[in-house]
């Protein structure tokens, strides 16, 4: 790493140039080795299981905003690498990102995105629009394409409260940075198919905040039920899913005791009815 920002001596000119408000661009000039996407990988290298992966993330909107929830398990192959991973990142006052795929690169990218938004806000004196944030993240994923081709695929899910329109929104991405807005709900990760089925049955557009969280926890339970790489609520170790709620008042990580209460209720209901709540037939 360069001595440029060690606090002594003269800074490189890039620090004084007026112009860019992008942190990633600045980093590309003053310390390119810190960019998660700027790595040269050896040709033909095999990358299986170099970094833990797998996850289930669910997001759903409710009238006041959006709920984002993630399980806590990270796996390498069929081994549980970690039981209490935090896959959700508050990226600014009104947005959050969750990651699926290669954990190492994904975490770095979430961290860079976080600084990117804050840096822009400080430089320009106002924050990016939610649309702008979604596009910026797409560009960063696109930059990861060479790594994605070698197996380090990062698939984030961006949720935010659009202060201009007054509603919660969800954006998903593909490996090349293709961005699509999802309506009502979306899930990513290895357990996503199971969680999606669950969400489809339980989602309603008139849910209160706590009920929206309940729906997310039911969906995560269903994902953990069928996907070995997704962890369910671990009542013995007191490890519960993480839940972020973003509304007009900004981003809030739901208190652990509240999630614990709701998750315990879900598990107890499953003891009576293992497949969970039934949607009416007609």
């Amino acid at each position, binding site marked *: *790493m360069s001595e*440029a*920002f060690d*606090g*002594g*001596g*003269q*800074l490189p000119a*890039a*620090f*004084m140039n*007026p112009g860019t408000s992008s*942190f990633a661009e*600045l*980093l590309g000039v*003053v*310390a390119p080795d*810190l960019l998660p996407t700027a790595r040269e990988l050896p040709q033909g290298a095999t990358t299986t299981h170099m970094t833990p992966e797998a996850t289930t993330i669910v997001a759903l909107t409710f009238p006041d905003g959006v709920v984002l929830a993630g399980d806590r398990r990270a796996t390498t192959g069929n081994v549980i690498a970690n039981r209490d991973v935090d896959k959700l990142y508050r990226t*600014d*006052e*009104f947005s959050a990102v969750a990651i699926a795929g290669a954990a190492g690169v994904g975490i770095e990218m979430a*961290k*860079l995105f976080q*600084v990117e938004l*804050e*840096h822009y*806000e*400080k*430089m320009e*004196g106002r*924050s990016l629009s939610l649309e702008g944030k979604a596009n910026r993240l797409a560009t960063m994923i696109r930059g990861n394409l060479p790594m994605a081709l070698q197996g380090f695929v990062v698939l984030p899910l961006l949720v935010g409260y659009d*202060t201009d329109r007054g509603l919660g929104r969800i954006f998903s991405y593909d490996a090349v940075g293709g961005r699509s807005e999802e309506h009502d709900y979306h899930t990513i990760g290895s357990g996503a198919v199971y969680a999606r089925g669950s969400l489809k049955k339980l989602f309603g557009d008139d849910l209160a905040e706590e009920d929206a969280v309940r729906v997310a926890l039911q969906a995560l339970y269903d994902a953990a039920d069928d996907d070995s790489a997704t962890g369910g609520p671990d009542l013995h170790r007191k490890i519960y899913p993480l839940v972020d709620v973003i509304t007009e008042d*900004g981003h809030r990580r739901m208190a652990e005791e509240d999630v614990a209460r709701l998750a315990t209720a879900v598990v107890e209901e499953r003891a009576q009815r293992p497949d969970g709540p039934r949607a009416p037939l007609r």
Partner: protein
Amino acid sequence: MSMPFYVSPEQSMKDKADYARKGIARGRSAVVLQYDGGILFVADNISRTLHKISELYDRIAFAAVGRYNEFENLRQMGVRLADVRGYAYDRSDVSGRVLANIYAQTLGTVFSESNKPWEVEIVVAEVGDDAASDQIYRITFDGSVVDEQGYLAMGGSAEQVTTALKERFDKDASLGAAVNAAVHALRHENGEERDLDSSGLEVAVLERGRREHRKFRRVTGDRLTSLMEEGAASGGADPAQDSAAEEPGGGSQDRTNGS
């Protein structure tokens, strides 16, 4: 008129310093002071968008007087430096001292190596876990750094403003009382008794107890007006304060940082 052949270094430095001082003295003042919940910044500034006070990092803020383009350049440099360091190491590794040092280096180099010194005076302040660990650094146009305690004023007629601020300063004052002490001091610029209301002030705080990692918050609009009224009601024995008309800030809303 012919050019002199030789100018002594002493004379050259003195000329530059006089030039910079004059430039700074043309602008309005800003004050920085501790209060019971953190550090308060108040600047005499009618613009809503061209700031004299800004956030640098989670616990660190910047205030400046003088030539706008020059201190804006310094502000951007500070934000860049802080963000790169915080990203490379950890958020807790960004300190006010490091930023103050780099500003001192930059201003010192400009002062000694270029013909025109920068006409700026800046403050870098970092709010700590308690009042004793707060840091307030004043950096002047020639690159000298002073570690200030409690309060300071800079700009226009800094001496008069400092004297007025000293009368009212109390590090355990409430925010309202601290805002009023600051406004009282700024009214004494150039020995005049000026009317200052909330629409002509730029106010921000580094709040020690704020739950999120970012402690910087602007105080504007109705919130500022009510703080000034509250401060005047609780401790305002000064008749000048009571007579000052306090109007809402042009209908602008209370805007917190980050929104």
